């Protein structure tokens, strides 16, 4: 499924996140990269260097927007100012789809700037789906929601995380940004089988995948994005690719960022698994 309605019928390959330490390299060397993912909030400003830089990148590359503060799962209504700025950026980048997280992080207008896990209940799924529909109708582009990594589970939950994700995307009729690293991290923190998760989400809705590195501590795993992708995550990615088809894939590397070539080289390892999926399909 190289393209579907959840990623705007685009056929993107393997991308990396656009990060400050790589700006000079990208602008001077113009490396060949399928696409860049930008953090929307970094460019939802009114002027200055961020927008100048973005415009220079847009002259050369395809860009997809990924947000970190829409908080589809917050009980609060969508913030109109936020949406107006986001829509202006969508017009600027011409992103074929937009992603943000299946989480909450603000209440009564106070922001925690974190991606907090949801209580997996039917009422929460209905509220979240309603917000996703409102936001998609306003922005007029497809939306993919990303599963987050988490460190807590709640007594109030009525279903598994993958059942909740499925409930939300079916009610909202939106896409999924399947973060296989987050699935792996949460599976270790909560003791479920990550393959059960990948097997049971609606594969036809997956419009994008994320891969990343994480850090193991004695009693939990943190989603740190400061390492190469670990083997179990690659295996899970290969499995997800077999089930979902070849999907636009993005490597996240957000801390202790090495050279551009190292990050891009790590991302391109995904080709090995994509080729495996192609061979399996023949």
């Amino acid at each position, binding site marked *: 499924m190289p393209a579907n309605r959840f990623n705007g019928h685009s056929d993107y390959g393997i991308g990396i996140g656009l990060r400050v330490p790589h700006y000079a390299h990208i602008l001077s060397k113009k490396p060949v990269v399928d696409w860049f993912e930008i953090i929307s*909030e970094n460019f*939802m*400003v*009114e*002027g*200055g*260097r*961020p*927008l*100048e830089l973005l415009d220079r990148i847009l002259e050369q590359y395809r860009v997809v927007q990924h947000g970190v*503060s829409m908080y589809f799962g*917050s*009980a*609060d209504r969508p*913030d109109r100012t*936020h949406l107006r700025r986001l829509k202006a950026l969508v017009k600027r980048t011409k992103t074929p789809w937009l992603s943000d997280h299946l989480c*909450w992080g*603000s*209440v*009564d*207008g*106070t*922001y*925690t*700037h*974190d991606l*907090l896990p949801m*209580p997996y*209940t*039917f*009422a*929460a799924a209905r*509220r979240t789906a309603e917000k996703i529909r409102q936001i998609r109708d306003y922005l007029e582009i497809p939306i993919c929601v990303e599963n987050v990594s988490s*460190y*807590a*589970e*709640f*007594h*109030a939950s009525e279903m598994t995380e993958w059942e909740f994700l499925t409930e939300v995307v079916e009610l909202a009729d939106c896409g999924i940004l399947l973060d296989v690293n987050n699935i792996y991290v949460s599976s270790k*923190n*909560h*003791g479920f089988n990550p393959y059960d998760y990948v097997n049971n989400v609606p594969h036809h809705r997956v419009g994008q995948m994320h891969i990343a590195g994480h850090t193991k501590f004695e*009693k*939990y795993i943190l989603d740190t994005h400061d390492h190469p992708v670990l083997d179990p995550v690659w295996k899970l990615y290969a499995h997800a690719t077999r089930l979902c088809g070849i999907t636009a894939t993005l490597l996240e590397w957000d801390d202790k960022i090495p050279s551009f070539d190292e990050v891009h080289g790590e991302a391109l390892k995904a080709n090995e698994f994509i080729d495996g999926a192609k061979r399996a399909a023949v």
Partner: protein
Amino acid sequence: MKPPPKHAPPRIGSTADLRSFQRMMATAIVRPLTSGDGLQSRWIDGRPMERVAAEFIKPNDRLTSFERLQLYNRMYWFRLFDAIRDDCPGLLAALGERAFSRLAQAYLERCPSRSFTLRNLSSRLERFILDEPRLTAPRTALAAEIARFEWAQTVAFDGEARPVITPAHFARTPPSRLRLGLQPYVTLLRLRYPIDTYVIAVKRRDALRSEASNTRGASAAVHRAFRRVARPRARRTLVAVHRHNNRLFYKRLEPAAFRILEALAAGRTLSRAIAEAGPGVRPDQVKAWFKVWMTLGWFCAFGNKGRRTAS
């Protein structure tokens, strides 16, 4: 944020329940850490925090409910502390580690983020410093000016740029009727301390320290050498914080030039603003100033952005 419910809802069957649940968890996350960087042991009503956390968070075979909640509490504070340190290196240098941390914690407790972006985190810091002088005494005036200056840098970095007024516009409108706005990204600062040179010195020191600490085997003596930048002594300073070609600049201004810009920003006509420069100012001086300001693109149509002067 409104007060949380007495107990987390055992069942989340409505948006109201979801909101109650989120108020409960957010209240726990944003409470200050203990001196050992842990979750406080008592809830806001005095009950043991272990019991409150266990009401809504499941434990697992490795972590208690309390420990799981503590992870989020720590991540919240570490993230916000990092953000405010990045935004305010001058204030950190002037106050020192301990006083800055005390100030940052008190500020974030009183003024939690109300914006979707951390970019705006320190927008209310100057006001807070002035409202709570005990936190920065005896350097409150200096601290407030640095906070104002560092916020002006954020505005200059990515603030709005409006269409620049052209010389033709000047020619079309008589000075007695012409009103000029200052670009929103330009902030005029009337300071009691030379904060511009101080902040430059701190940035240089931090850049050098970063280089030194990247050097394998750098000695403690090297690090000590970078420890202090002398705090500025009081000296009246008039400066515009702005950007040009998307680079950040600080431009010192003569008092008469500052008065003209201040008057224009306040909505005076061009002729009134020039009159406020004072009697000793020569027309060729004024002409030279305007030539530079026009070249820098500082003027736009007078609008509704309000005063751009901070004193």
